[in-house]
């Protein structure tokens, strides 16, 4: 790929982030702020002695343990961010190819020498690779502020907080786990990403209704025509275990990507994304 194409693709990604900064930057910042405020408020309700005891306990909790082994401990804190990311992703994907047709700016975007393939791929890339980066940065900022607050509380309560460093390292290591958790989940959910993009490009109105309605209809259609329920089984298998959407161990990362179900899902998702690419040519 030549340098100009890379610069072009970067400009497309930048455009997506600028247009949806509320979803990618604002939303996780609000979640981080709420968690910090709630934690700080709880800390203020606790009796001073208990607070000092708690802080001492925390300061040695992670002492001596490998940050990568203890990183998964922080995944529980990541759950509200992951939920926010999934909801934001649905909002983003169902609107992204619809909104610029609705406001006619598609005529400007398509007057530039950028292909429909580049445009749609930039949106997939934004959700799979880029959006989680902003979420992780917000989580990092939350950890940093949390650590500073913890230190201030510790100092003001005369607690030795040397061990906090280990906890912070584990928290930082968890950021890698959180990012890859989001990435792997996006790959797992690539069919859903493709489905939403397809209907975002297709619908003249109410794309979410189209996406949901047709989703239900195709299930009935398969049963009616073929007498089978493979589609329903497949969807149910993929959605059944919420544990799939959070990774708690570094060791399982590669296995979660390079397995038959994920790879087959990527094939199916690619079919739907290809449909979205061709659908983009209909600008009305």
């Amino acid at each position, binding site marked *: 790929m030549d340098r*100009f194409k890379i*610069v*072009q693709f*970067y*400009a*497309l990604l*930048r*455009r997506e982030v*600028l*247009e949806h900064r509320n979803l990618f930057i604002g939303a996780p910042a609000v979640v981080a702020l709420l968690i910090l405020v709630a934690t700080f408020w709880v800390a203020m309700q606790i009796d001073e002695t208990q607070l000092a005891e708690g802080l001492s306990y925390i300061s040695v909790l992670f002492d001596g343990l490998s940050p990568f082994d203890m990183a998964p401990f922080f995944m529980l804190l990541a759950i509200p961010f992951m939920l926010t990311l999934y909801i934001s992703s649905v909002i983003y994907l169902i609107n992204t190819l619809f909104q*610029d047709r609705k*406001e*006619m*700016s598609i*005529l*400007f*975007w*398509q*007057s*530039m*020498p*950028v*292909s*429909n393939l*580049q445009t749609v791929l930039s949106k997939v890339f934004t959700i799979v690779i880029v959006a989680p980066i902003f979420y992780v940065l917000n989580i990092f900022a939350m950890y940093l502020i949390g650590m500073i607050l913890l230190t201030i509380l510790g100092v003001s309560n005369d607690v030795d907080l040397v061990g906090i460093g280990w906890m912070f390292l584990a928290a930082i290591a968890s950021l890698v786990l959180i990012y890859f958790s989001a990435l792997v989940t996006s790959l797992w959910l690539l069919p859903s990403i493709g489905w939403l993009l397809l209907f975002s490009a297709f619908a003249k109105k109410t794309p979410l209704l189209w996406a949901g309605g047709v989703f239900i209809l195709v299930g009935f259609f398969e049963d009616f025509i073929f007498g089978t329920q493979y589609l329903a089984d497949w969807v149910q298998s993929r959605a059944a275990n919420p544990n799939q959407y959070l990774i708690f161990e570094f060791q399982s990362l590669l296995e979660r990507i390079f397995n038959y179900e994920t790879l087959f899902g990527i094939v199916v998702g690619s079919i739907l994304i290809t449909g979205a690419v061709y659908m983009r*040519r209909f*600008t009305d």
Partner: protein
Amino acid sequence: MSNIVEARSLRKNYGNFTALDGVDLTIPSGAISGLIGPNGAGKTTTLKALIGLCDVDGELSVTGRDPRKARHKLMEDVCFIADVGILPKWLKVSQLIDYVEAVHPRFDRKKAEKFLSTTDIPSNKRIKELSKGMVTQLHLALVMSIEVQLLVLDEPTLGLDIIYRKEFYDRLLNDYYDGNRTIIISTHQVEEIETLLSHLLFINKGKIVLDTLMSELSQVYTEVLVDADKMAEADACGPIHVRELLGKKSYTFESVLKERLEVLGELQTPSVADLFVAKLKEDRHG
């Protein structure tokens, strides 16, 4: 002179409505072509077909490419301004320039900034905060900073006041057009552009009803103001249009020898606006 656009038998239907009904047109390189027609005639559909934004049946070649096959490649050589509403409202001016600089290989940022410095457009404002006229100025500044062979303008001054409209065409002619670039402008405000044009296309009900160079217009079309006593003779010459004018009648003729018409009254070349009305009414009456 080679042709930058060649179209044969373009057809497009929107449901039961026929937008293009066998459009044939050629646009010579270096021309300033006016595509003139009433509302719903097929102007926008034709222009969108030329830049690959609308799938049509028929043969089509723009700068040697089929717009339906490689639109994004074509857009390296073609720029397009639709009516004023299409710039993304959420972008800031500076972000828009950054974007175009990154995605267009022929964009000259310094040129764009130089054009914008002569306007009142602040670079940190969002496009939704700009007036309609400013948005058009901005879009024109961007487009004039891109080295392309063909510029397609679809009603670019629609809804603008006279100052912005005049400035738009002044900039287009003085700062942009160099005799090598081709410009296609569609409009129904004929009077505004008739002095700019070198090539004229009339479109009505999805069909091209006139395709001529301005230099040939006077050879083909003649307008005569005829006194009452010569009207019968004028009618016998087969005018394409007749209209009342201050007690006399103005006749418009197509491809009738001037020697034959001289006896009827004073000859002149019809204005593009009058010719437009004449051809439309001829088309209406068959």
